[in-house]
């Protein structure tokens, strides 16, 4: 059904500093679906996530992206966030001097303003924060820490999923969320993503390895190679990649 479509990418070409990375990507994602995008290093996986989130350094040269019927390419990164897109960064950025509380308060209230709502009351905000931090097993004292400064790899990724839980996006894009995680952290992160998933939402899980996909089970698997999707199949493709390697797909 056409109105089930959340995201529709057609003929997407994108470059950074005049180097073309995405060379014609087509991808349709419906409500309730989890898509895995797998591929070797340098295939364009992170570029795809950056273009979806609207990173200014990337230029879309051709094609279109529609999100819930809106032209995503005309929207700023913050407008995309308000519309319900969330990118979990492969390398979450450190912001010295800005505490997680202040960062999230600004973000949550910007979302509310974008939707014509009043700012959240201080007490309600703190309650929401405590609840979502517990959800990803972040210690309460992290609320006062500067965003990602001095965090371990696992703490940074849990902080990403915490932010995702706070903002409750319709489309979550997880860019190499498994990189640098031990099994325990991986399980916490994956459980978080699974718990946030509903039939009204969708997720794109970008990864090099099959490991994360044992915890977050995809409905559709795509292989991205040299800026194009070269194969699309069900979750059985993950095992095939593991067996044959990307060279033989």
């Amino acid at each position: 059904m056409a109105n089930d479509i959340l995201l529709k990418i057609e003929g997407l070409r994108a470059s950074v500093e005049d180097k073309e990375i995405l060379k014609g990507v087509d991808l349709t994602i419906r409500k309730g679906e989890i898509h895995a995008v797998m591929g070797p290093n340098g295939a364009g996986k992170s570029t795809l996530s950056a273009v979806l989130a609207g990173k200014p350094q990337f230029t879309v040269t051709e094609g279109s992206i529609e999100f819930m019927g809106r032209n995503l390419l005309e929207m700023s990164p913050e407008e995309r966030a308000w519309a319900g897109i969330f990118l979990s960064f492969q390398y979450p950025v450190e912001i010295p001097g800005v505490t997680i509380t202040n960062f999230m308060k600004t973000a949550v209230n910007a979302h509310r303003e974008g939707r014509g709502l009043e700012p959240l009351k201080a007490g309600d905000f703190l309650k929401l924060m405590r609840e979502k931090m517990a959800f990803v097993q972040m210690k309460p004292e992290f609320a006062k820490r500067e965003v990602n400064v001095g965090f371990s790899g696992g703490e940074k990724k849990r902080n990403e999923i915490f932010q995702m839980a706070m903002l409750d996006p319709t489309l979550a894009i997880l860019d190499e969320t498994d990189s640098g995680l031990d099994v325990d952290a991986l399980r916490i992160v994956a459980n978080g993503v699974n718990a946030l998933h509903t039939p009204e939402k969708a997720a794109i899980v970008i990864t090099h390895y099959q490991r994360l996909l044992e915890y977050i089970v995809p409905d559709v698997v795509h292989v991205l190679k040299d800026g194009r999707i070269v194969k699309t199949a069900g979750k059985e493709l993950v095992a095939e990649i593991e067996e044959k390697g990307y060279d033989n797909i």
Partner: protein
Amino acid sequence: MTEIILVSEGQLNRRIDVPGGESADMVLIVFPGISCDVRLDVNLNGEGAEANILGAYICGGEEKVNIAIDMHHKLPHCNSRQLFKGIAGGRSKVDFYGKITVAQDAQKTEAYQENHNILLSDGAKVDTKPQLEIYADDVKCSHGATIGRLNEEEQFYMRSRGITLEDAKVLQMISFIAPVLENIDDEAQREAIAAEFDRHIRNIIRSM
């Protein structure tokens, strides 16, 4: 008690003498629209004297901000710390000069000086000249100066969470200035000055 000086247009010349065992603490604030020439001559005159001289400046127009600090360590066991942080936009011009002199007798001195700047426009100019002159041999001294721009990776990260570009820049600049403002003891005054910074920062961003 830290003395807070809201610098006004024009000259500010001040000689500060700190007797042994005492401390001179000062925070200088320069808001937009103010061109000034600040000269501080700080003398640590007795053993165990201390000085904490901090400052924050923000300019977004045609301002000329000159700040010159001479810090004299004359006797042993004196400590000094200087931290100046500033934001320069528009066609403003900032000159920072800071000199720490440690006399031969001033053993066990600890003296630190930092000056960090954010440039908001190609038309703004910052010159920073930190200097050390040390005649004693058992001292801890350092100085550092940087001139940078707002980090775009941070901005994209914040925007991807729905924070507007304007709010992202305000957060970056307020957090940059915060280590200076933290030294204002009176909470109401600190918050009032932080709110003034917030207002000025937004005006400068909107005029860009």
